[in-house]
């Protein structure tokens, strides 16, 4: 079996080539490096690009204002194509070769959840911008989330639908991934014990474009409100087809809808849709308006929720470095003491829970005149406090 003799040699040879090619170690200049991984190729490229652009914008703002502790921030980005094995490798790369002092995940749940243990073990803080899976933060004490927890968002949706909209007959349509499930869980938990009736409930596959059949069934159930979880492409198809079918129910979405692409693809079918989200276009704070204008100016399209989350992740990290120093212990201490952080575009972050979830007032926007506008804000601690 001469071939077997070749095997270890081949393996070693190839590994040697690997490490030569892959092992380039750059010099450490006078900057603070923050790593970010997000999909900029593959089917998830839109969100990954939004996250990257927004993060770059945040770094730009911070550096223009003098940087952090006198040094500039540098963002190191790698594409993970939303693949978990690439996310793991990229995490190692950021830690070992780029020697980042903290990292941001601009990617989806699968990739984030795979990379998180790598950062945790290496003692590097990782903030998840918008990945929704509940267990991401449970990986360890260095893993944080800046996005709104799905169950919280769902609960707020419940309050919106029952209290603010006064609905009695409710239809629920859930997208079949962790995002949808978490939202619906939270939503239904609020509905418990309230004087409402769930007249329809079903789920549908991510990427679905044909909603007419399912909308028919919903129409027959005659709901006041349709609470439908979706990302912007499904959402756009959904609301368009709902309009074509003449569905009268009020459609309530969540942050998955929160993208200019939803407005563009849905056209005037989007009018009147209400979504639970943290990005308030009518927010009068300077940081929000600056973010919205500069993002549009630099990248040609309006910002979306994914971008806003990544932007805030950078803001939080920068603040933590400023306050606690460029070490993990320092940043952790700062984050534990974070209170009413005002520099986040997704609303002031009140504090971080023990479980490293961000607590903030959760808002709702309504589409009026083809744009998102303020609709409501919820800050009742019973609603907005994450379960861990």
């Amino acid at each position, binding site marked *: 079996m001469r071939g077997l003799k070749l095997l270890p040699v081949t*393996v070693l040879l190839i590994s040697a080539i690997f490490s030569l090619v892959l092992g380039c170690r750059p010099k450490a200049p006078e900057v603070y490096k923050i790593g970010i991984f997000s999909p900029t190729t593959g089917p998830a490229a839109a969100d990954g690009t939004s996250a990257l652009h927004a993060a770059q914008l945040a770094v730009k703002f911070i550096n223009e204002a003098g940087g952090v502790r006198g040094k500039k921030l540098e963002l190191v980005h790698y594409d993970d194509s939303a693949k978990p094995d690439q996310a793991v490798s990229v995490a190692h790369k950021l830690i070992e070769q780029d020697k980042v002092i903290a990292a941001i995940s601009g990617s989806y749940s699968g990739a984030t959840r795979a990379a998180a243990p790598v950062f945790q073990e290496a003692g590097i803080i990782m903030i998840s911008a918008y990945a929704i899976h509940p267990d991401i933060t449970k990986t360890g004490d260095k893993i944080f989330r800046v996005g709104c927890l799905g169950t919280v968002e769902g609960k707020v949706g419940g309050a919106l639908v029952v209290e603010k909209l006064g609905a009695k007959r409710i239809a629920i349509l859930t997208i*079949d*991934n962790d995002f949808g499930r978490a939202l619906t869980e939270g939503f239904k938990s609020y509905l418990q014990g309230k004087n409402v009736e769930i007249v329809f409930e079903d789920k549908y596959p991510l990427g679905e474009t044909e909603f007419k059949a399912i909308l028919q069934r919903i129409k027959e159930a005659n709901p006041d409100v349709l609470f439908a979880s979706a990302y912007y492409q499904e959402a756009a198809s959904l609301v368009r087809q709902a309009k074509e079918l003449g569905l009268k129910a009020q459609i309530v979405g969540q942050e998955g809808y929160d993208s200019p692409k939803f407005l563009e693809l849905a056209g005037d079918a989007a009018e009147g849709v209400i979504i639970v989200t943290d990005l308030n276009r009518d927010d009068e704070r300077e940081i929000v308006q600056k973010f919205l204008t500069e993002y549009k100016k630099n990248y040609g399209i309006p910002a979306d929720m994914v971008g806003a989350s990544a932007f805030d992740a950078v803001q939080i990290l920068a603040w933590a470095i400023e306050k606690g120093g460029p070490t993990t212990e320092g940043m952790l201490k700062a984050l534990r003491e974070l209170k009413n952080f005002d520099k986040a575009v997704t609303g002031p972050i009140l504090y971080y829970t023990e479980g490293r979830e961000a607590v903030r007032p959760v808002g709702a926007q309504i589409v009026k005149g083809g744009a998102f506008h303020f609709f409501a804000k919820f800050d009742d601690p019973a609603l907005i406090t994450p379960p861990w």
Partner: protein
Amino acid sequence: MIEAIFGQYTISVLIFSGIWAVLTLSLNILTGYAGQVSLGHAAFFGIGAYTSALLTTRYGWHFLPAFIGAMLITAVVGGFLGLPSLRVRHDFLVLATMGINFVVVGVFKYTEFFGGSMGIINIRKPVLFGIVLSGEKFLVLVLAYLAFTVWLSYYIARTWAGLAFNAIRADEEAAEAMGVSVPRFKIYAFIISSALAGGAGSLYAHFLGSIFPDHFAFAESIAILSMLVFGGLGTIRGALLGAMVLKALPEYLRIVGDYRYTIYGGILVLMMLFQPMGIIGDGSWLWKKWQEWRKK
């Protein structure tokens, strides 16, 4: 020591390449030896991963029994899912296996037992003899399994099964006429091939720590088959090289930034146009040169 030379980044890339090398080798037994072209191999990868993940997280099994269990269960399911190969061949089989992949992933996604879209998480690193296997220790585990798979591939090629596979690949009717029970050996090929893939799945699940249905989707099957054909279908060296190169290629190509997949696609096309036997498959330029050189 390995870590000092290579670093965790390279180690992780090697681990994934090693796991994918097992996948490619296992597909080689099914497609390269037995001629059953499958575009659904990732399904077996997934079945192994889920089995191992569930056995350890939900039923408290230790790694080694779970690993073996994953291989066994995948073998059984694989044998069953190989039944379509008894009815259809070639392009129809390609499509049937594609279909199997979708159905399996669909089941993972929509069944609570498998965690549905929430996946399975908190899968622990293997603990053998009291040592936690992570980083370079895990790499040793992967290489050991890879060595086993290589050995098994060589062994099968030299046994009666290997001859039977060859005969089936070359001409099914002739094989049947010569007394080879074609259905039996086709199912054998599926069983062996899927068992090996299942083991790879178990390793994957324990290294990554979390698995979701989409990790085992059709795109992954395509990738595995591409690696095999790229390296050289039917050869062990081809399977190894194809996996090593194409799995790591996107990492190499980070230099060219976002054109990685364009180049990847381009390389596949060019390779098939000019070296359809694969880089070092039988009849390829490199292999012929190597053989000439060795004769000197």
